[in-house]
C-alpha cells in the first residue's frame, strides 16, 4: 500500500475545516486546555495559541531542529507532530528550563561560551542538549557533535555549542573523555 490519499478537486465542494476541540497539555508544569483543530501542529499550538514563542519555526518540516521541545522528557521536533497527539503529555519548552534571571546550567553555559549569534536556533539547541543529557548517551565530544546534529545553526555557532554542552555534561559526570 501507500497509495496517496488525495481529495476531490475544488468543484465538488471543498473539504470543510474541522472544528476545534479542547486539548489538554501540561506545558512547563502548567495544565493548559487549548481549543485546537486536529491540524494544528504542536509547534503552532505553542507559538500561536499558547503564546509561548520561545520555540522556533525554522522549516516546519523536521529539517532544522529549531522547534525542538521535550515531550515527557524526550526531545522531538514539535513541527512534525500534532498537538492533539499530545493530550495529557508533559511538554517542556525553553521557557520551562529557565528564565533570564534564573538560567538553567545549559542556558548559562550557552551564554558563557557564546554558543549562538542570532539566537534563533538557540532554544532548539538548548532543548535538544537537555534531551541529550536526559538520554545520558553523550560520553565524548564526537558523540555530542553527532547527537547535536539534529539542530542546524546558520550562524555557525557549533564550536560554542559543543563547548557549552560538554561543560554541562562534564559537570554532571557524563563524559568519559
Amino acid at each position: 500500500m501507500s497509495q496517496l490519499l488525495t481529495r476531490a478537486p475544488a468543484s465538488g465542494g471543498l473539504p470543510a475545516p474541522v472544528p476545534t476541540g479542547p486539548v489538554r497539555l501540561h506545558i512547563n508544569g502548567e495544565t493548559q486546555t487549548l481549543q485546537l483543530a486536529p491540524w494544528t501542529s504542536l509547534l503552532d499550538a505553542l507559538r500561536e495559541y499558547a503564546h509561548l514563542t520561545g520555540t522556533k519555526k525554522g522549516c516546519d518540516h523536521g529539517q532544522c531542529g529549531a522547534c525542538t521541545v521535550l515531550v515527557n522528557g524526550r526531545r522531538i521536533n514539535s513541527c512534525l507532530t500534532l498537538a492533539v497527539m499530545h493530550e495529557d503529555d508533559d511538554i517542556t519548552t525553553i521557557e520551562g528550563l529557565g528564565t533570564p534571571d534564573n538560567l538553567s546550567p545549559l542556558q548559562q553555559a550557552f551564554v558563557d561560551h557564546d554558543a549562538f549569534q542570532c539566537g534563533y536556533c538557540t532554544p532548539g539547541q538548548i532543548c535538544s542538549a537537555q534531551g541529550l543529557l536526559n538520554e545520558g548517551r553523550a560520553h565524548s565530544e564526537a558523540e555530542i557533535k553527532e547527537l547535536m546534529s539534529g539542530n542546524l545553526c546558520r550562524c555557525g555557532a557549533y564550536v560554542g555549542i559543543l563547548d557549552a554542552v560538554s561543560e554541562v555534561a562534564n559537570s554532571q559526570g557524563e563524559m568519559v573523555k
Partner: protein
Amino acid sequence: MYPFTYSRATDVADAVRDKAGHDGSAYVGGGTNLIDLMKMNVEQPAHLVNVAKLPLAKIEDLPNGGLRLGATATNSDTAWNEQVKARYPLLNQAILAGASPQLRNAATNGGNLMQRTRCYYFYDLATPCNKREPGSGCSAIGGFNRIHAILGASEACIATHPSDMCVALAALAPTVRVSGPQGERSIAFEDFHRLPGDHPEFDNTLAEGELITSLDLPEKGFAKHFAYLKLRDRHSYAFALVSVAVGLEMDGDTITDARLALGGVAHKPWRDHSAEALLKGQHATAETFGRVAAHVVANAVGQGSNDFKIELARRAIVRALKQAAEGKQEAGDVYLGGQ
C-alpha cells in the same frame, strides 16, 4: 494541509476498526513522514488514527530465539535497546545513522517501514510525478536525480527508499506482522517493499487497512561480523546517497554465511541474494569483495546526476565487506561513520 478528523486508538482491533470506518483515513505513528507530506499537500487524509500509543512498544524475546520489535517502539528505543545492541548491532548502527535524534525519538518502527520513497519532485506539487499522480510523468528522469535509483528502477519512477533502518532489516530478514480487517498475517521483510514497475504509487505490499504490529527478527544477528556504512552529502542528518549493510558469519577467514543489502539505490531496500551466494564459502579477501561488489552493480543504470552512485556503491560494498570481515564495528549509542 487539508482538514481531517482525528482519533486515538486504544488497541489494535480498535485501530483497525476505526480506520476501516473512515474513508481516506491513515494511521499515524510518530508523524514525521506523514505530517511532513500532509503539509506539502502531497498526502490529504480525511481522518487520522493515532497508533503511536498502542501497546505495541515492547521489545521482547521470541520463543524461537528471535526478538520482537514492537511496531510503535520508537526508533531510538529500538536502537538503544540492550538486546538489539548485543544481538543485532547492525540494526543499532543503521537506525542511529538515520535522521536526527529528535526524529528518531518520534519515529516508530512501523512508520519507518512505511515512509514514502524520497524524491524532490514527489514533494513538489509544481512538477509532474507518477507516484503522486499516476500517468503525469516522472520529472526525475531527465531531471536532477542525485538521490535516485540505480537498481530496479522503472520507466515510471526512479525514486529510492530512504530508510537506513530498513537496509539493516533487509539484511536481517525479519517478518513483518500485520493485523487488518481480514485478520493477521506475516509478510517476509523482503516482500514488504516493492519495486516501482508500472505502479510507482505503491511503495509496499501492505493491504488497505492493515496495521503493522511488530517486526520479528530471527535469531541470527550477525553480531560479530557486520558493517553499516552510510555515505551522504554531510556528516550527519542527511539521507544516504548509498548505504550498505553487511552481516557475515566467519570460520577463520572463510565466509560461511552472508547478508548484503544496499540503501539509497533502489525503490526498496536492496538485498542481493546472488551476491550473498557468491560470498559464501569464500575467503575474505579484497579479491572476493571486489568481485562481489562488481556483481551487485553489474546491472546498475545511472540517470545522469546519479551516475556516480554505481561506482560509489561498488566501492562502498568493498569497504563494508572488509569492515564486516574485520569485525571492528561495534554497537553503540551513536553512529560515527562506521569507518
